[in-house]
């Protein structure tokens, strides 16, 4: 019924219906005017002063009514809905009451005037017409009312769930009985309370859809009950309709201000009662839908958090996904995406596990053969205090640009890695140094599990050094050297983490420029940590080609455009990734040259043998992706690290 009621409320009346309604309403108005004037003409003389006063008051009232009708149903005016018509009937109650009051007074003999038979007959005609004015509603709201009757025959038993539960709160047993009878006949489940305390108890205990609440009650009055219902978050959404005598408008206003949804004037008019209860039930239904919707939105938001934490369980949103609306679609898409993300993460985890196994095997065999770190010939000796802050623990590596030490930061009581940069490895061009500093500043901002955190740039004894997060582990260089080459899953584990680190760095505007296995650390959990972001910026490009074997190490990982000192961008790093993966899969570099010049010539001009051609166990899609990364033209490579990560994820 509620849905039908809502539709009926919003239905726009046709021009003909409006005209008919206007006619039906103006007819009684005409009668009232006519008879009042007729009686006024007869009511001359001082004896009839009181009578004239009543008649004139009735004329004013009926003209008010006419104005209301004209305003609401003006020909050619705005669209008229059933709601407008109902509102008009509500407004007409006031002039109706005024006329009825006057007519009642006219039938009571007053002053010296006698009430003759003809006069009373005319007064009764006015009363009938006045009743017709508001009663016209029954015939005027023909269609919706008729529809309702058909939809919900009064005699049929309707399931309580279908219509809703109504709580009637009134201290007057007769009022309760009348309301109960009406509402039960319409199929509502009715619960009654004779006082405020009982009402609150029921509201909190049972689920009510609407409360009909009498304003005037002994003990806790309706306003107080209303206040408590609206104060409690558990009950505040229940529509409350105040029951009140029509003359108690100020109380009604106060109640509406306090959160009442509507009011029901006494004596009860069946049509009004049905309309208001129906509207309130509909309101509650819509509110229920809204609350349900918000709850489900919350579920989707919770699912998003769960995905972030890696604890999303597939199908958690099944209930929301059943919705036919946009939220349901969102839940379905989200679920499938989350499941995809989870599967990917699972695959990556598998790859990393594989990688760890390979690392462990490599370490074991290294220990067996007694392969150890070369004794260091660096400038710093373990135990020495460097830059008055870092106590050198040991040498952990050496590269083209300088030495790497593990050291203890005495100020922060933390292990750090220090990379010293040989002064002869660095550009003496001040603008290059400035750009380098800028890049280090940017690199410091990168915070990602696959990036070695850069702490600081310092200068000591005329040479720069960079301090970084110390990572216990081995480099990918060492792993490849120990294993010869890596399995496909291990390679994918490295590749996906490498792509993730570059995606973040590139997003911060940092190009690595020197991606190579020596710069890639694997911690004991198989987590890849890329180091030296931004540091290659300091290299003297011009010396690369002339001073063989120094400065940036081997040009084997450098993209053609980088070797030619052309514009370098994110895609130059992707080329280096291609070389690293090639090496992981095959244990060999794509290009080998007897001299740097020969190597560079090959990088610039020769297409390498694909990984799959070298090793039949390398899957063709992976081999093909590596070859794309090695494209001599940046435009032939994947467009970004993010795109590469997607491509790798598709490979498994």
């Amino acid at each position: 019924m509620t849905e039908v009621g809502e539709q009926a409320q919003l239905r726009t009346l046709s021009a003909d219906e409006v005209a008919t309604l206007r006619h039906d309403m103006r007819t009684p108005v005409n009668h009232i005017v006519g008879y009042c004037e007729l009686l006024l003409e007869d009511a001359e003389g001082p004896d009839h002063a009181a009578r004239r006063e009543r008649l004139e008051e009735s004329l004013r009232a009926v003209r008010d009514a006419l104005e209301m009708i004209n305003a609401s149903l003006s020909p050619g005016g705005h669209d008229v809905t059933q709601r407008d018509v109902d509102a008009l009937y509500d407004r007409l109650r006031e002039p109706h009451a005024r006329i009825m009051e006057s007519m009642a007074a006219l039938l009571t003999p007053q002053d010296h005037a006698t009430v003759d038979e003809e006069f009373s007959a005319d007064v009764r005609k006015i009363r009938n017409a006045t009743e017709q004015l508001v009663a016209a509603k029954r015939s005027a709201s023909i269609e919706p009312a008729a529809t309702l009757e058909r939809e919900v025959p009064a005699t049929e038993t309707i399931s309580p769930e279908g219509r809703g539960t109504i709580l009637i709160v009134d201290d007057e047993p007769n009022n309760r009985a009348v309301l109960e009878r009406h509402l039960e006949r319409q199929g509502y489940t009715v619960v009654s309370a004779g006082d405020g305390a009982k009402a609150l108890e029921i509201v909190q205990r049972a689920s009510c859809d609407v409360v009909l609440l009498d304003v005037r009650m002994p003990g806790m009055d309706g306003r107080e009950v209303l206040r408590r219902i609206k104060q409690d978050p558990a009950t505040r959404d229940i529509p409350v309709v105040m029951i009140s005598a029509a003359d108690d408008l100020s109380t009604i206003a106060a109640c509406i201000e306090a959160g009442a949804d509507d009011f029901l004037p006494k004596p009860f008019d069946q049509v009004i009662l049905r309309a208001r209860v129906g509207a309130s039930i509909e309101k509650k239904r819509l509110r229920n839908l809204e609350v349900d919707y918000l709850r489900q939105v919350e579920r989707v938001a919770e699912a998003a958090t769960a995905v972030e934490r890696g604890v999303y369980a597939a199908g958690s949103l099944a209930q929301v996904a059943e919705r036919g609306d946009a939220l349901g679609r969102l839940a379905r898409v989200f679920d499938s995406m989350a499941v995809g993300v989870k599967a990917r993460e699972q695959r990556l985890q598998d790859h990393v596990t594989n990688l760890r196994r390979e690392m462990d095997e490599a370490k074991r065999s290294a220990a067996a053969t007694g392969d150890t770190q070369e004794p260091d010939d660096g400038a710093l000796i373990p135990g020495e205090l460097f830059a008055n802050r870092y106590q050198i623990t040991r040498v952990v590596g050496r590269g083209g640009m300088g030495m790497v030490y593990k050291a203890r930061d005495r100020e922060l009581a933390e292990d750090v890695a220090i990379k010293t940069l040989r002064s002869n490895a660095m550009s003496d061009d001040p603008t290059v140094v400035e750009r380098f500093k800028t890049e280090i500043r940017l690199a410091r901002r990168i915070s990602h599990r696959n990036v070695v955190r850069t702490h600081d740039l310092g200068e000591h004894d005329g040479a720069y050094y960079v301090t970084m997060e110390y990572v216990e582990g081995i480099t990918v260089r060492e792993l490849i050297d120990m294993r010869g080459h890596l399995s496909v899953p291990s390679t994918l584990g490295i590749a996906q983490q490498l792509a993730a680190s570059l995606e973040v760095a590139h997003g911060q505007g940092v190009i690595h420029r020197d991606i190579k296995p020596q710069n890639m650390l694997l911690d004991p959990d198989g987590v890849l940590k890329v180091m030296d972001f931004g540091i290659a910026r300091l290299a003297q490009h011009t010396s690369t080609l002339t001073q063989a074997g120094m400065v940036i190490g081997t040009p084997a990982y450098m993209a053609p455009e980088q070797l030619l000192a052309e514009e370098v961008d994110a895609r130059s790093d992707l080329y280096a990734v291609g070389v690293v993966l090639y090496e992981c899969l095959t244990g060999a570099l794509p290009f080998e040259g007897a001299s740097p010049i020969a190597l560079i010539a090959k990088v610039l001009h020769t297409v390498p043998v694909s990984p799959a051609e070298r090793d039949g166990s390398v899957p063709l899609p992976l081999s093909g992706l590596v070859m794309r990364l090695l494209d001599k033209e940046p435009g032939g490579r994947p467009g970004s690290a993010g795109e590469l990560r997607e491509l790798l994820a598709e490979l498994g």
Partner: protein
Amino acid sequence: MSRVLLVEDNEMNRDMLSRRLRKKGFEVDMALDGAQGVEMARSGAYDIVLMDMSLPVIDGWEATRQLRAAPETQTIPIIALTAHAMSGDRDKAMDAGCSDYDTKPVEIDRLLLKMNTLLGVA
């Protein structure tokens, strides 16, 4: 004493208006629908016709056209009464051949003025 034919289907309207007109000194006869109104008017016994426009059998518009079409009623003053008060009603009434037009609720003084004007009394 002018004789008025009131063509009106609504009983209360008839009662009310006829009583008020009689009090003002008119002789009032009543017809309940358009067809009866036309028939009575053709008798030639009336000085003026007050014609409600929403009538059963034949409506006021049609009744007016028929009265205008017949030689014996061609010139009789007809005042259209309508409750609709649609903006086009006045023109429609005049087009149909009415002499004047008034809306309900009837303001008796205004109606009397119109009637007297048409009757040449004023």
